[in-house]
């Protein structure tokens, strides 16, 4: 009686990791209908983690990071075409070439783009880059290979820190400007951010924390020459990478009536999109960086994760639920995991470090530069971050999955002396992750609390 779910027409908007994995999974799940994948870049799906690492180090060319296909999804690929709208009444995805693609079910996997420098004139200076796409990585790698005098990296989150690391490995002078007190502080909290700062300083990074960049300067011929900082100082540099995080690609959904806003497209645990009234849709699904979904281990907050593993896991759940009826549908409950390599260190995270009030160093030490930091919220383990101790991650994932008490039990042979003394995790208040219930529900900003969508035609 549900056989028709395996047939019909499915459109996937977004041809990156989540889009590709969903397409493959749809076929694995027995979908025999027609499948269209829309992507705004001209390239077939490619992998992003190498772009800020091997590609910038010239160890891999940007065009070699194509994602392997585990099976041919037999899709009609529309690459280099941008979706500009989704009409939930006519069940069509509108493209910027005027075409409109009919669908029975649609998957939104449009991901994010690099947050641009806010001043467009300054952002347009030659030598100012962002890093998100393959083309951006290719151009940046070329400029790094040309041997700039100094690189300015704005923002010391994971991407900014990886770029700075690659620059140092190439022997380039680099200045990092970070608004917070230390690198990675927003993602990992105070203790590990201090280690991150030491790592950068030891590798010769000119690290400026507690400052913002107030202006990018050009030479009058449109070439970037340096930047002014909020502390009154000036950095002379001939290359600038703006690493201020990501913007979710949701603008095309503005008139769709979906709960799509700056924080992503809200969906339920089954990847089904909410409309702006908080009512779940049956035929619109979401996966990957653009989604925000409730997770029971983290207070059912609407999490939005820019993680490789989340894109894969969520895409597979979305694909499964697109072709299976309610009773057979699955929730997306994967424990968030991400990793970064920088300054010779391997950093891996499991859980949600920002969903915490205290931390302990459970194994190893800051001095040894090898440790497992465990995060707790209201007395239970919610996350762990390892530095050069990745093989311990599974253990901590198990503690998170089972809501084990925080701090974790004693007994590890390399247990740190301070392992019984929780210290504040120094992250933004976890209660703020969702930014309040109203916005959580609609995704819109509070001044747009209600919008009436009129069916047209």
């Amino acid at each position, binding site marked *: 009686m549900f056989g028709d779910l395996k047939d019909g027409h499915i459109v996937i908007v977004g041809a990156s990791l989540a889009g590709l994995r969903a397409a493959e999974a749809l076929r694995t799940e027995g979908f025999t209908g027609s499948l269209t994948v829309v992507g705004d870049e001209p390239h077939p799906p490619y992998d992003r983690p190498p772009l800020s690492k091997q590609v910038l180090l010239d160890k891999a060319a940007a065009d070699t990071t194509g994602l392997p296909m585990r099976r041919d999804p037999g899709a009609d690929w529309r690459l280099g075409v941008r979706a500009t709208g989704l009409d939930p009444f006519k069940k069509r995805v509108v493209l910027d070439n005027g075409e409109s693609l009919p669908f029975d079910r649609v998957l939104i996997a449009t991901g994010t783009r690099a947050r641009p420098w806010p001043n467009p004139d300054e952002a347009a200076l030659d030598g100012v880059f962002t890093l998100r796409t393959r083309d951006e990585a290719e151009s940046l790698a070329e400029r790094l290979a040309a041997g700039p005098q100094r690189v300015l990296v704005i923002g010391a989150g994971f991407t900014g820190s990886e770029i700075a690391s690659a620059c140092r490995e190439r022997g380039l002078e680099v200045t990092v400007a970070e608004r917070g007190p230390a690198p990675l502080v927003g993602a990992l909290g105070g203790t590990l951010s201090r280690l991150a700062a030491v790592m950068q300083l030891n590798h010769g990074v000119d690290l400026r924390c507690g400052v913002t960049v107030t202006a990018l300067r050009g030479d009058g011929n449109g070439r970037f020459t340096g930047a002014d900082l909020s502390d009154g100082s000036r950095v002379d540099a001939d290359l600038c990478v703006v690493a201020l995080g990501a913007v979710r690609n949701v603008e095309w959904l503005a008139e769709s009536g979906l709960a799509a806003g700056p924080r992503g497209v809200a969906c339920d645990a089954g990847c089904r999109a909410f409309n702006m009234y908080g009512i779940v849709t049956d035929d619109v699904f979401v996966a990957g960086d653009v989604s925000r979904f409730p997770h029971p281990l983290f207070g059912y907050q609407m999490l939005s994760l820019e993680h490789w593993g989340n894109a894969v896991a969520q895409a597979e759940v979305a694909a499964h639920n697109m072709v299976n009826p309610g009773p057979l549908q699955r929730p997306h409950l994967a424990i968030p995991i991400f990793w970064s390599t920088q300054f010779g260190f391997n950093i891996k995270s499991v859980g949600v470090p920002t969903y915490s009030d205290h931390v302990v160093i459970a*194994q190893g030490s800051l001095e*040894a530069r090898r440790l497992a930091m465990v995060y707790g919220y209201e007395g239970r383990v919610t996350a762990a971050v390892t530095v050069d101790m990745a093989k311990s991650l*599974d*253990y901590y994932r198990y503690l998170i999955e089972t809501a084990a008490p925080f701090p974790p039990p*004693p007994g*590890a*042979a390399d247990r740190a002396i301070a392992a019984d003394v929780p210290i504040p995790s120094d992250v933004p208040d976890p209660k703020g992750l969702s930014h309040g219930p109203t916005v959580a529900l609609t995704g819109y900003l509070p001044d747009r609390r209600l919008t009436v969508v009129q069916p047209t035609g």
Partner: protein
Amino acid sequence: MDSDTLLARITDYASRPDPYPLYAELREAGPVVRQADGSCLIGTYHEIAALLHDPRMSADPRSRGETTRKPPFLRLDDPEHHRLRTLAMRPFGPPHSPGRVDAMRGEIARLTEELMGSFTAGRQVDIVDDFAYPLPVTVICRLLGVPRQDEPQLQEWSNALVAAADVRPDEDPTERVRAGQQAQIEMGAYLIDLAEQRRGHPTDDMLSAFVNEPDPALRLTQEELAQTAILLFIAGHETTVNLITNGVLTLLRHPEQLDHLRREPDLLPRVVEELLRYEPPVHIRERIPHADIDVTGTTIPRGTSVVLVLASGNRDPMRFHEPDRFDPTRPDNEHLGFGGGIHLCFGGPLARVEAQSALGALIPYLDTARLVEDPPPYRQNAMLRGPRHLSVHL
């Protein structure tokens, strides 16, 4: 039968050809199965995996009160383990020597061809003595930098060491342990001497890399070097022999899979992975908890000998669909063949290359081959399980 005798029955030589029914009994009685001698047996996949990753579990025999010298890194805990494993890894694998194992492919293929020179239709060969044994021994000798002619002597020492580490509940281990200690001393002295000859005259091998490390902070002491080299020699071939032999035996017992493999040679890496699940070389590892540990409601007191039956976990129906079926196309084959956690097999990448090369070369010969004896005679060791001989009529 009582489940508290399972370890004795598993290690009983009579069980060697087919321990799998005992493993099924273990999983039924599990997940924590107390033995009469006070140890605990664990045979279910998820519990084994969790304990392998648990930093409270010690690999060090001194954790249960055994007095012994400092063991090699295979049986040390972090942070000591990490330091020694990392130093051993530097000349072997990524990030410092990323191409080392891959660069041996050509040589392994040549060795394979050489060993099969006498394989002709109608002949009877012993897969163990004529092939599966000499291949990894030669490879590990080259890798370490041990002259081929000294190999029989190393072999003798190695046999004594392996026997000393065997679990035989009904036997007095005194003499085996004494012989093992003697072998340890002699083999260590030999390897240190060999390494010293390379100081300042490096050849492209691991012993040379160890003694010519320029950074004093990254050097092994002489004792550490001896122990590490002994460990690499033993672990570098004891297991691979069984992997290759078990592979031939399993393929001959599953002609349909052999046929499948012949038609689709690209399946070879997955055949090796499935072998590591279905007939793994390492069946049992021991761990000792540093604290009282709860395993699905049962408390294992600190200091208890916890016997993880990896090969049983590999056949756990709670983890693998139809676990007793040999199926190389199996998806999601995250087996315990290389263990897991911080002690995850160091030589896994090399073992894979050797097994793929060896089985790939043998496949054409297995077309018409038949087993002379099934089951074949097995080696004594229950932890490192494999046939002592595997006579095949080509």
